[in-house]
């Protein structure tokens, strides 16, 4: 019901674009299906039929809006972006140099493929989904390790997304043995009759904001208060047991594991209308009734209905989220409020991608291949005179004529600082200790405050404390240290003249060579100071602290 409406209620201009897009589409379907890289196995490349369809529909909106795309990004710009987006950190200097030197015409498609098979891909998406499901700070009685283990397995096996969602929604058991339960455990912090579970499940997996309908009908969209409670009634068989155990050392009872158990529940739920009347709601999923009797496993039924059909909300929500991940703007924004009162930038394309995602067997990697291989993603992030109008930052509808600048997330920033300073290779501490340091830094960076609605800052959004942490914090202090064994020490004591050393500093941090002007500035500083070492240190400090470093562009 709702999923059909997404594409329908559009302003006239959009309807026109829609038609234009469809015309171009027919023309494209005759194009070769896939690209073959030098006699190897099939890969998704720029000639893939879905990639071509994306290109055609995006081009159609350019034409209709009388804008022109920016030129293609050069290799240095593109490789930095694709690393950040797919594996969550900037590329190491060797990879940049190798990629730029590579003459293969399909090298971009091949790099996308190799990044999708990199262990860092699994780590990156595990981080992203763990944060989305349980938050940056682990709530009480939730196992972050369990949640991570679940997603690690899901992304390393590229498990179909419908199965992942099913597991999360229907999970039962021990929070480390079945890590999937942590998603629901994190929504069971208050005794709230499953209100938080209802709100989070719809928002995260279906891209629908229904939380305000707990108390009243939605002011703009079609959600009614009884729908909230119908949805809620699917979760009412969910119970939680917090186990305690005797600690022989202290002689006290301490927290042990938590688990989700099935709880007897049948019949309706009761809720109060604004006028004080009590009403009942039975489990109904977007018009599909479910037997409210005691033999029904309601969460199983919910998962079945959520993952049912050619274009369920979970497919639209996932595609929208991925598109936004790569472009900085979704087809529908904000990405977790896909609703009839919010215009969709490219409705036909949005629906088509969601359908293709379902047809692919809910293959997450396949969607990333389509997006990362498309023309719009290959463009520079610089706007031109011909597309200045395409500026979603001021509230304009996104046309994707150039790639929008995104702030790094806290994790991307930390992991990129580690790469830029080669700390990942020095082996200065074991994996576990490294992970502890990482979480400590993130905890400080992602400062949360004890406000009642629990808002968190998850990316560099330009606060002064974050700037101070970058400028004077221990991590960057270490990074610019010239102690023997440090990256900077190795770099400076190695071969090469002044120009080559400056060049290395730029490549390792910004993934590009300095411009003539930048080179001259650095040389001027070197000439002006007897302590040349401090100049290199300060240059590296400046590069790591720069806007160019901290933005994904």
């Amino acid at each position, binding site marked *: 019901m709702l999923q059909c409406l997404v594409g329908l209620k559009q302003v006239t201009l959009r309807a026109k674009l829609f038609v234009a897009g469809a015309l171009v589409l027919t023309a494209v379907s005759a194009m070769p299906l896939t690209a073959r890289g030098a006699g190897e196995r099939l890969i998704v490349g720029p000639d893939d039929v879905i990639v071509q369809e994306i290109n055609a529909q995006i081009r159609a909106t350019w034409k209709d809006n009388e804008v022109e795309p920016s030129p293609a990004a050069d290799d240095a710009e593109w490789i930095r972006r694709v690393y950040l987006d797919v594996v969550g950190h900037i590329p190491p200097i060797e990879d940049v140099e190798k990629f730029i030197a590579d003459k293969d015409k399909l090298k971009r498609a091949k790099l996308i493929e190799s990044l999708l098979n990199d262990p860092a891909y699994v780590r990156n998406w595990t981080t992203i989904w763990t944060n989305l499901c349980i938050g940056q700070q682990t709530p009480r009685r939730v196992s972050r390790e369990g949640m991570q283990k679940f997603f690690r397995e899901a992304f390393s096996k590229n498990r179909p997304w419908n199965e992942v969602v099913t597991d999360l929604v229907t999970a039962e058991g021990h929070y480390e043995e079945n890590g999937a339960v942590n998603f629901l455990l994190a929504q069971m912090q208050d005794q709230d009759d499953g209100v938080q579970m209802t709100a989070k499940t719809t928002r995260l997996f279906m891209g629908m904001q229904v939380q*305000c309908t707990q108390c009243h009908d939605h002011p703009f969209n079609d959600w009614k208060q009884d729908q909230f409670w119908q949805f809620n009634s699917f979760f009412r068989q969910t119970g939680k047991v917090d186990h305690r155990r005797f600690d022989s050392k202290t002689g006290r009872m301490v927290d042990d594991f938590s688990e989700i158990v099935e709880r007897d529940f049948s019949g309706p739920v009761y809720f109060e209308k604004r006028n004080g009347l009590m009403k009942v709601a039975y489990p109904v999923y977007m018009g599909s009734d479910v037997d409210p009797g005691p033999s029904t496993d309601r969460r199983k039924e919910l998962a079945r209905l959520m993952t049912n059909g050619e274009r369920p909300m979970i497919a639209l929500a996932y595609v929208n989220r991925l598109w936004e991940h790569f472009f900085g703007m979704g087809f529908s924004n904000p990405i977790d409020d896909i609703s009839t009162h919010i215009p969709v930038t490219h409705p036909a394309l949005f629906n088509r991608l969601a359908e293709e995602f379902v047809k692919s067997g809910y293959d997450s990697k396949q969607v990333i291949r389509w997006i990362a291989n498309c023309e719009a993603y290959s463009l520079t992030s610089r706007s*031109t005179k011909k597309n200045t109008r395409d500026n979603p930052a001021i509230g304009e509808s996104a046309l994707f004529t150039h790639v929008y600048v995104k702030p790094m997330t806290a994790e991307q920033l930390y992991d990129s600082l580690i790469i830029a300073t080669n700390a990942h290779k020095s082996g200065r501490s074991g994996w576990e200790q490294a992970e502890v340091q990482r979480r400590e830094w993130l905890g400080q960076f992602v400062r949360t405050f004890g406000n009642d609605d629990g808002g968190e800052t998850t990316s560099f959004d330009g606060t002064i404390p974050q700037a*101070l942490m970058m400028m*004077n914090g221990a991590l960057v202090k270490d990074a610019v240290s010239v102690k023997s064994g440090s990256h900077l020490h190795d770099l400076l004591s190695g071969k090469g003249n002044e120009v080559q050393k400056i060049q290395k500093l730029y490549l390792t941090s910004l993934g590009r060579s300095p411009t003539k002007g930048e080179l001259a500035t650095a040389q001027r500083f070197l000439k002006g100071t007897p302590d040349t070492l401090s100049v290199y240190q*300060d240059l590296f400090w400046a590069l790591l*602290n720069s806007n160019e470093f901290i933005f994904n562009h």
Partner: protein
Amino acid sequence: MSLVIPNGMSRRHFLGHMAAGAAMIPAMNFISHVKANAAELKKRQKACILMWMSGGPPTIDIWDLKPESKNGGEFKPINTKGNMQISEHMPKTAAVMDDLSIIRAMSTREADHGRGRYYMHTTFVPNPTVVHPAFGSVVSYELAPKRRELEIPSFISIGGGGSSPGYLGMTHAPFQIDASGRINNADVGDLGYDRLNQRLAMLESVEDNFIKSDRGDSGAAHKKVYEKAVNLMKSKQMEAFKIDQEKKEVVDAYTGAPAQGGMMGGGGQFGRSLLMARRLVEAGVPFVEVDFGGWDLHANVFGTLKNQRLPALDSGIAALTADLKQRGMLNDVVLVWMGEFARTPRINQDVGRDHWANSWSVMIGGGGLKGGQAIGETDKDGLTVSSPKSYQPGDVWATVAHALGIPLDTVHKSKNGRPMKMANGGTAIQELIA
């Protein structure tokens, strides 16, 4: 000499005094003379302190009691020095109510935490196409450019969640700190200013290239934030965050801690935050927001109020009002007390109150506004506004703007060029304007 010149912008100010012949005065006297002058000047600077009651406070138990109604609950009203009664659990505040007023006719439309928070902070309802600035950002935008001697952020939020500066830009985003006032990583340390300056010079050349690369406004916003961070690092005004410099009696008055020690209600956090707010306002900060949470009282409302929330609230408001008055600052500093909404007059089955936006109270005072009044009223059960006029957040903030000398016909532009009226076109509340 350079030892005592504060770093940053006040150097020019300092030299100005030198030229005026102050060089004849021995150094120490001279410094205290400058300080005294600056203090005198800052006293007259307008400012606003917002006490934000995160979670939605039950104003029916605090400012607008209904002892005759079934909704009235457990508390009794008491007389105050102003022309109104308030809760018996606010005795210290009752003694300063001649300086404060209560708007008892708020009728707002948002009863969801997020939406209510947005509406009360910005005066606009949430809208997917534009992000509106919190009013603290508006005040910062209007007043900060006129305070060139101010080196610390012009909108400081203590202990609270962030709010967006919206179309006014990151320069006017709230600077968030917790109630300890500790600011990490703000020390130049062993590095020294020469090296810091060298770093900053190099940073500038990299940043400027990115800013000029046609990649939107984020690059420039980043540079501005760094500039502010550097100003902060170099500033003597950082002292304002250190409430431990205050006498113990003063801290105790704000927190309500008895002389023997021991804190009430959130470990004295609210009181300490308010004390810091006073110090910040004194240093010239035009807008300080103090967050005091724990009001989402769906259950056990009376016990929690009586034992935790109200004692802390009472001491904090009373001490701040008296302190500002004693320092001659109350006429220039507006105090606003509000949450995202209030709570249902009806008491629920858990002896709690739920979300309610239809009829509730906001407290406002200082800044030259008329104190001692209750403006508007609710019906006998507290369910509706019964006086002829009800008020929106825009009216409250328009009143604040008036008190701060910000013209109400000021119009800001959203990023896509839409004109945005000051306080969403609200009007200053006549009864409050002296």
